[in-house]
């Protein structure tokens, strides 16, 4: 079996009293798109910045492309590409100039025109960065990380703040990276983004890993409890049950006996987003009505 590109054992990071990352393990294999999913403040960016060599860890073992990122030198940096969570471009350089500037930093860069078409900026090559839309700027940002033709690419929340069409375009770019055989470490707080792009997803919350698997495994909706909603006397009622057939039978039976209507009756399975929210919300702050199990909570 191939060696993992990234391997983490018992990684810890504290800022003073606060523990941002509390002992996580994970492995990323060559050629896979790995999504590291979690809400803001979960420890995603701390972890990815340790992998990129920007931050020192407090404990644990980390290997990226066979080296400890804290000691990764020039050779190591030749092999990785980094897209930071928030980073502006030089507003006075054109798309082509920005890419050529970065190409000069690497020993064997990918041809500039190839990078421009990889990130879908044909026709914008001679445009200054300040004249690009937010989505185009982000794609140029990705292009600058690709220009060195890295084996491993880090993408930290690449679509945060995008409108739907810009997100779709960014997704196409990232999906194209898989076809190039790149290993991609993607952090995101969007479940649908992870599901759409990743081979494997690991969910982090409060500095700990709370779930891992393929997007299909994590999104196994059939095994999740169903929610029954309706209105009675102008009040919203929401029930959560593992046995919706039986619950519905009782509910509708009672309603018929009393001659009442169940306005807006619906039965839903949780969406991926719901599953994700439940995994990542701490028990004290799960404000959703359906969190109060068992059945008949809101009566």
């Amino acid at each position: 079996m191939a060696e993992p590109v990234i391997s983490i054992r018992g990684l810890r990071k504290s800022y003073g009293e606060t523990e941002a990352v509390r002992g996580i393990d994970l492995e990323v294999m060559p050629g896979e798109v790995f999504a590291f999913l979690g809400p803001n403040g979960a420890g995603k960016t701390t972890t990815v910045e340790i992998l990129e060599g920007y931050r020192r860890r407090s404990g644990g073992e980390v290997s990226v492309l066979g080296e400890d990122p804290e000691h990764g030198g020039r050779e190591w940096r030749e092999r990785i590409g980094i897209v930071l969570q928030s980073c502006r471009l030089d507003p006075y350089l054109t798309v082509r100039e920005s890419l050529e500037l970065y190409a000069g930093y690497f020993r064997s860069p990918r041809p500039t025109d190839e990078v421009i078409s990889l990130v879908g900026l044909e026709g914008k090559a001679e445009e200054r960065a300040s004249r690009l839309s937010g989505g185009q700027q982000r794609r140029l940002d990705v292009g600058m990380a690709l220009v060195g033709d890295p084996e491993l690419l880090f993408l930290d929340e690449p679509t945060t703040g995008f409108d739907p069409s810009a997100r779709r375009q960014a997704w196409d770019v990232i999906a194209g990276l898989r076809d190039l055989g790149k290993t991609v470490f993607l952090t995101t707080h969007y479940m649908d983004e992870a599901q759409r792009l990743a081979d494997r997803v690991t969910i982090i919350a409060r500095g700990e890993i709370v779930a891992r698997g393929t997007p299909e495994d994590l999104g196994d909706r059939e095994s999740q409890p169903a929610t029954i909603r309706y209105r009675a006397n102008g009040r919203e009622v929401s029930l959560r049950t593992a046995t919706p057939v039986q619950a519905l039978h009782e509910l509708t039976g009672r309603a018929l006996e009393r001659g009442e209507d169940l306005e807006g009756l619906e039965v839903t399975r949780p969406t991926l987003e719901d599953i994700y929210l439940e995994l990542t919300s701490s028990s004290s702050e799960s404000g959703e009505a359906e969190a109060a199990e068992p059945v008949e909570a809101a009566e």
Partner: protein
Amino acid sequence: MNGLALVGHQFRYDQKAFWRNPASVFFTVMFPVLLLLIFATIFGSQTVDVRGGIKTTTYYVPAIITLSVISATMQSLAMSLVIAREDGRLKRSRGTPMPPWVFIAGRVGNSIVVALIMLALLAAIGRVLYGVPIPWGRLPEIVVVLVVGAAAFSCLGIALTAAIPSQDAAAPIVNALLLPLYFLSGVFIPDDQLPSGVIHFADAFPIRHFFEAFFDAYVPANGAAAAISWGNLAIVAVWGVVGLLLAVRFFRWTPRSG
């Protein structure tokens, strides 16, 4: 690319970005020209009581060149590096194989070249509009003084970024340091009108020493005085080394805010 070729590469793109940036062109290039025109217009007919009496314009040409060198180096670097740092651009370039010193060398090279361009521009304006002679015979001395000063003030500008917390704070902090010293060091107000106490105070800072060194190189003294005022230049260089040490210790590549 080897290190030096990479510095040249970085420098080329820094030059493009510099000349396309309206703020850097105005404050670094246009503003000193404007100052020279204003001072020459207002005080042009007077004389300054240094070197046994010289024309005011003969005084202001080297004075404003001094200002433009500090502006192209310390001021320009402190502002543009803080902006790039807070934008995340420094952090991104740190994530590439480019060695950090290459990036800094490219930026400093850019500043020194702009300072040399300002020397040529202001000297030409002084010659054409006000008849201030260009001391061609002393060109080597002038360039030595200018380059030492430009390098020293570049180091000070890079060191200063560590004390600037945000993009918004850059201009106020830089101007609060430089503007009073321009007045107190004889750059805006000729020496003969400054109380000696003020000049002693200004002597505690590098601007006054750089101005004196540059003035001595630019304006021939009566008799056979040395063209380079080594004492003043040495003090400027020491300031530069202190700036360099502070920069190496405290310069940061990652944003401080956000």
